């Protein structure tokens, strides 16, 4: 018998697709309905330019089409988005309705009263999408970032995170593996501990003319590259990838500075030791330079921001694309305190001076909606999830680079926003200067710890908001 169109499985399939379709249109219509009073409004949003936002910019016009709210979507580089965004927020002019803030900016901006909490809008049934499913946001970054003093500041937009990044072709080279085992007594593999990372750094640091993976080097090769510029995220790396994994911290639970504790000194010693195996220009390297150095193939390993990896580890960008391996941030062997990994969850907030907070709120909801997040990851053929369910999106689950996503997940499992410190910038400026001076050998780790403690105490006795 010829199987007809109306056979039972076909009916079920069609019915299911109709149901799914109607559910989707119901969800879609929430934003269209909620935005009706704001149709024709123009909102200005400032965000950072990374491969993630470039992909997102392709989706934003769909919001305009769906709601009739026009979005002027401005993307600036890391440093500009901080300066320009903060300048506008602090002026109170409200040129921008929404500004992307890195986690570390939230403390100073909160203490300046430059952020508009969204609690009223979350409670407003006309504005709050009941299907937003905030419980699906990766909890550590979301909870530590989006709430302060009992108020909600926004959702979570970007889950920037650091991962361990190494040259798989070198780590898998049999000749190198044998030499490494002969020297250190254990197998060459992506570092799980900070000590292993040091050994790998030492092992692969070679001069021009020496052999690397059987071939003579045309220029010097370095065992590690780290961010070393004053400012940027240099101190974040030292603090949350090293100091905290050594069991130390820069302050106690009440916010009293503790920079001179013994664990911190040990971490600073390791930090200084690693700089000896890094390129001479390390003190000038920013978070942009580190992936560039890795992409050019002049260093064996690093700790870097995973969103930059997405822009480097792809054919046509780096000659070593596909030859990298990623792993969780290495920890200190034998330390029992919870492991730590540097992450910088970032949030798009509504500015206190915004003239269109409701329309902006709808846009922020729409951005973090499951549908948009999935589309963002599919369009970018990968990405950095802010939702747990995004790990199951095919572009991530079937990625050709599974170690990268496993490393990202590992970081985001423990990653949090930075503690809220009104004097974050002053503290960070001092401590990143010390990180640089210790790395360069201008200060001993003990002197660096002592100086850091003194500088912190000058700025604040209780440093938390």
């Amino acid at each position, binding site marked *: 018998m010829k199987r007809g169109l109306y056979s039972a499985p076909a009916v079920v399939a069609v019915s299911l697709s109709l149901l799914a379709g109607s559910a989707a249109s119901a969800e879609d219509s929430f934003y269209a309905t909620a935005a009706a009073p704001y149709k024709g409004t123009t909102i200005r949003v400032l965000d950072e330019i990374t491969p993630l936002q470039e992909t997102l910019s392709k989706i934003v016009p769909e919001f305009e089409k769906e709601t009739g709210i026009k979005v002027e979507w401005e993307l600036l580089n890391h440093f500009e988005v901080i*300066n320009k965004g*903060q*300048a506008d927020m*602090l*002026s*109170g002019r409200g040129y921008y309705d929404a500004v992307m803030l890195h986690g570390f900016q939230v403390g*100073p901006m909160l*203490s*300046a009263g*430059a952020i508009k909490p969204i609690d009223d809008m979350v409670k407003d049934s006309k504005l709050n999408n009941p299907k937003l499913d905030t419980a699906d946001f990766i909890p550590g970054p979301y909870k530590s970032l989006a709430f302060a003093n009992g108020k909600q500041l926004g959702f979570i937009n970007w889950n920037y995170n650091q991962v361990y990044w190494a040259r798989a072709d070198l780590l898998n080279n049999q000749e190198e593996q044998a030499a490494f085992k002969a020297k250190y007594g254990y197998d060459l593999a992506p570092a799980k501990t900070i000590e292993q990372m040091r050994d790998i750094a030492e092992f692969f640091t070679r001069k021009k003319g020496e052999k690397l993976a059987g071939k003579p080097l045309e*220029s*010097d090769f370095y065992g590690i590259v780290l961010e*070393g*510029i*004053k*400012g940027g995220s240099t101190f974040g790396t030292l603090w949350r990838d090293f100091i905290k994994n050594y069991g130390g911290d820069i302050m106690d639970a009440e916010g009293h500075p503790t920079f001179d504790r013994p664990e911190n000194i040990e971490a600073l010693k390791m930090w200084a030791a690693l700089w000896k195996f890094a*390129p*001479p*220009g*390390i*003190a*000038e390297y920013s978070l942009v330079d580190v992936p560039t150095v890795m992409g050019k193939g002049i260093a064996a390993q690093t700790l870097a921001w995973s969103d930059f990896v997405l822009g480097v580890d792809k054919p046509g960008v780096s000659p070593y694309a596909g030859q990298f391996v990623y792993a969780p941030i290495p920890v200190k062997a034998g330390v029992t305190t919870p492991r730590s990994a540097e992450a910088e969850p970032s949030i798009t907030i509504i500015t206190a001076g915004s003239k269109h907070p409701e329309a902006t709120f709808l846009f922020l909801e729409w951005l973090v909606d499951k549908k948009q997040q999935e589309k963002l990851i599919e369009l970018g053929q990968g990405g950095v999830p802010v939702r747990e369910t995004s790990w199951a999106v095919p572009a991530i689950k079937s990625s050709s680079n599974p170690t990268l996503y496993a490393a990202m997940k590992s970081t985001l499992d423990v990653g949090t926003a930075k503690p809220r410190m009104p004097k974050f*910038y*002053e503290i960070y*400026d001092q401590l990143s*200067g*010390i990180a*640089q*001076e210790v790395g*360069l050998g*201008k200060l001993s780790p003990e002197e660096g710890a002592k100086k850091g403690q003194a500088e912190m105490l000058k700025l604040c006795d209780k440093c938390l908001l």
Partner: protein
Amino acid sequence: MTNVGEAVPLSVSAAQPSARERIWYPYLLIAPSMLTLTVVSLIPFLYTVYLSVHAAKFGRVTDFVGADNYITLLTDARFWNSVGTAVIFVAIAVPIEFMLGLVGALILNQNVRGRSILIPLLFMPTMMAPIVVGLLWKIMLAGSWGLISYNVLERFHLIGQTSIFASSDLALYALIFVDIWQWTPFMMLAFFAGLQALPLGPYRAAAVDGANSVQVFFNITLPMLMPLLVVIGLLRFIDAFKVFDTVYILTGGGPGIATETPSILANKMTFEFWNIGEASALAVLVWIAFFAFCNVFYQIAKKRLNAF
């Protein structure tokens, strides 16, 4: 009808301004420029003074704090470090630029062949935007791959395993070198223009008297050129003390605070720490220092060097 040669009584109001008009007329003429100066210069300066005596953090001006911002700044080692850095910068860069500029101008003044091509070429560094100068030298001196650092300094083991701009010992001197590279041609061409404008009479008289070139330089050229030398030197001094752009691009004040000048510190205080009260106090202090210095310099130049 009036005959030719007959005195014609002119209307007083048309020909000669009244006493009252004589007083106001010059003020009327300079009023537009004074008004512009007041708006673009004096008001912001007065507002800076106002901010410097108030608590102004994160763009919000709150309590009057008197001299607190000044005291905080004057007791801050970082402020004095920035002043010290600027003093070293100026003390090395400006005299070298001055001397090289003067020597170069004297050579150019000797009718050297190809001068019309040489002068525009010499002026190129000065014409470049500071960001271009910064990027150019960043590429030349970048650690491990820079054109000069790799091909010269590393190849001949002149600096060892370090990057110049990342070295606390070398970064400031590298910045001074860049400043000399950029501004010596300006000094040279300004002095050359001055030399070209000197009257020939005294030189002819000196030649008749049998004066040698050293005597001519010290007794004729230098005294006649002195007003220009003083003005250009002073302008360069002020400009070098305020150096910001190349430092910002090349080192950002680092490593640590090794190259942090008052301008870099003020920028950091304003746009990173948003501590506008203290940053304003810093600006006022630098202004007072310049005001005092320029006055002393002016008196010396006037009385001892007959420059004005």
